[in-house]
């Protein structure tokens, strides 16, 4: 430090911790309550459906009692058990979809407001009066978007899945069925959760172009960052479409929408990089060639959340070009964070 008057210095790690905490304080509603409420709604719908199913069954005199899952499970081959587990895992993942969708929306609008809202209410003058660099500020917002918010969402996913299993357990027990050996198999649950956590850094890398673009609009816009973020790429796309610019270079017209618009607006969607893996079930699903899930192989989750897929993504040019572009956008966002304090509203 070349400041002659400074005797004490900030601890950068501590500062960063407080910056993250600051983001959490401001966005507790989105980061914490949003996913939790989405999960709560799923559970509420589940319970409601079961109650309706019970009522309907009672009205029509259907008797569910006496089924013995216990015996069924005893008679199942290991292959069948594995298939059941895979099906259950897929089902549990499907249940978590509302939470992931909530997370996407929360993070999208969080980033759009991250460097704009405090300029609009002028509290940026307070934040800038503290010994915190613009670099640290922007980095803390990125970390909140790609690490803190997903961690809360995954915690909500785990809570939802456990709650769902409890509901199903209670329901089946009411019918004299012991679901414990089949439903409460810890291995597939744990492996799913660990993988969800491991996906966070890959999702983060994949999301960087969107993160960078939204932050840039947030730091740059004097008003209406949402319009900047969406209207600019769309308008550009329309112009390119009308002028047949890309076709001049024998690039298909969809290239811009998929590789530019898709990447700067939609890369926050978790697992957006899964298509990179090549011939797996997901690309089959998207091309419609073969919609048979490999349930019999019991590795559906294995195949979407497989190591080979993560590896394929991490070694793909798609991902790293995006990282480079995203970093560039973030640098631009930091530049505008330094320059721009006023908004026009």
């Amino acid at each position, binding site marked *: *430090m070349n*400041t002659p*008057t400074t005797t004490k210095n900030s601890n950068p790690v*501590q500062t960063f911790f*407080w910056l993250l905490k600051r983001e959490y304080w401001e966005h507790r509603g989105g980061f914490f309550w949003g996913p939790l409420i989405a999960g709560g709604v799923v559970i509420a719908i589940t319970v409601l459906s079961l109650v309706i199913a019970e009522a309907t069954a009672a009205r029509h005199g259907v008797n569910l009692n006496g089924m013995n899952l216990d015996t069924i499970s005893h008679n199942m081959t290991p292959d069948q058990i594995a298939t059941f587990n895979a099906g259950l895992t897929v089902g549990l993942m499907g249940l978590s979809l509302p939470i992931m969708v909530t997370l996407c929306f929360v993070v999208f609008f969080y980033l759009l407001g991250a460097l704009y809202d405090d300029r609009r209410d002028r509290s940026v*003058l307070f934040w800038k*009066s503290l010994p915190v660099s613009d670099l640290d500020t922007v980095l803390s917002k990125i970390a909140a978007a790609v690490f803190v918010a997903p961690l809360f969402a995954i915690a909500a996913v785990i809570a939802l899945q456990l709650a769902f299993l409890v509901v199903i357990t209670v329901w089946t027990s009411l019918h004299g069925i012991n679901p414990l050996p089949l439903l409460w198999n810890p291995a597939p649950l744990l492996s799913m959760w660990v993988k969800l956590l491991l996906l966070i850094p890959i999702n983060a890398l994949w999301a960087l172009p969107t993160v960078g673009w939204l932050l840039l609009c947030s730091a740059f816009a004097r008003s209406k960052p949402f319009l900047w973020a969406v209207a600019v790429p769309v308008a550009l796309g329309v112009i390119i479409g009308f002028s047949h610019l890309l076709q001049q270079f024998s690039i298909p017209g969809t290239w811009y929408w998929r590789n530019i618009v898709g990447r700067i607006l939609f890369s926050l969607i978790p697992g957006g990089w899964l298509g990179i893996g090549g011939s797996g079930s997901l690309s089959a699903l998207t091309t419609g060639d073969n919609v048979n899930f490999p349930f019999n192989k019991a590795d559906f989750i294995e195949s979407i959340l497989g190591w080979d897929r993560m590896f394929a993504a991490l070694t793909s040019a798609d991902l790293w070009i995006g990282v480079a572009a995203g970093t560039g956008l973030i640098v631009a966002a930091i530049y505008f964070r330094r320059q721009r304090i006023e908004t026009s509203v």
Partner: protein
Amino acid sequence: MNDASAITTNIVHARGLTKRYGTAVALDHVDFDIAAGRIVGLIGPNGAGKTTALKAILGLAEFEGQLSVLGLDPRTHRTELMQQVCFIADVAVLPRWLRVADAVDFVAGVHPRFSREKCLAFLARTKIQSKQRVRELSKGMIVQLHLALVMAIDAKLLVLDEPTLGLDILYRKEFYQSLLNDYFDEEKTILVTTHQVEEIEHILTDLIFIKEGRLIVNASMDDIAERYTEVMVGVDKVEAARALNPLNERGIFGKTVFLFDGVDRKRLAELGELHKPSVADLFVATMKGTYA
């Protein structure tokens, strides 16, 4: 650097400080120094360049020319500078969602020169509750909170930009009283802009008048008392007074009050009763024609 000594003794050192917004010139080659232990009032009409000057000092705006604050360039060293410089802009810049206790925790977490004990002691004198959010506080209480946060920081320079705007007289008096009694000492320097000149003139040690991007007056209060004199002149001597080239004249109770800059007191005493002009009168006189 050729005048390194000036940089080390002065808290703020500006030479040829210029800021343009497009074609409009907000600051036009301004030179000034602010020494340690002073309370400087930066006074000017709306749009004169006060806030622009403060922003340059705080590293919140680009500028041309030479400016060093505590020996640092605010453009490139804002983060380091903010360890030694505190800043209160006009009210309502504390984020509305922030809780009082969280605000204290946050500043304690990121500011190495912040004393939590001091801050809590200041807050204990107010009606502010630690669980309250800023949005639940009145304007006056928000300023009290901001002041408590800032006074608990052991900084060299405190910059205040219209800190009491929109507050009632009780809060305004208390604000400056706290600053003087609990914060200010010879180690600290305060730079303040305000339109309520009459309320702070007794605490100022230095005065800078700024008009259309230029400094009109830049002097210590003692010098100003030396230089400027008001004379209350009867009808018979009005012409004689006008001949001495007064800055301003205004009528009061059938007499005329003239304001003179640097005219010999003995000569003025022959014209009528001498007064020390208030900063507000001086301001009005020097800013004549600003909005015309």
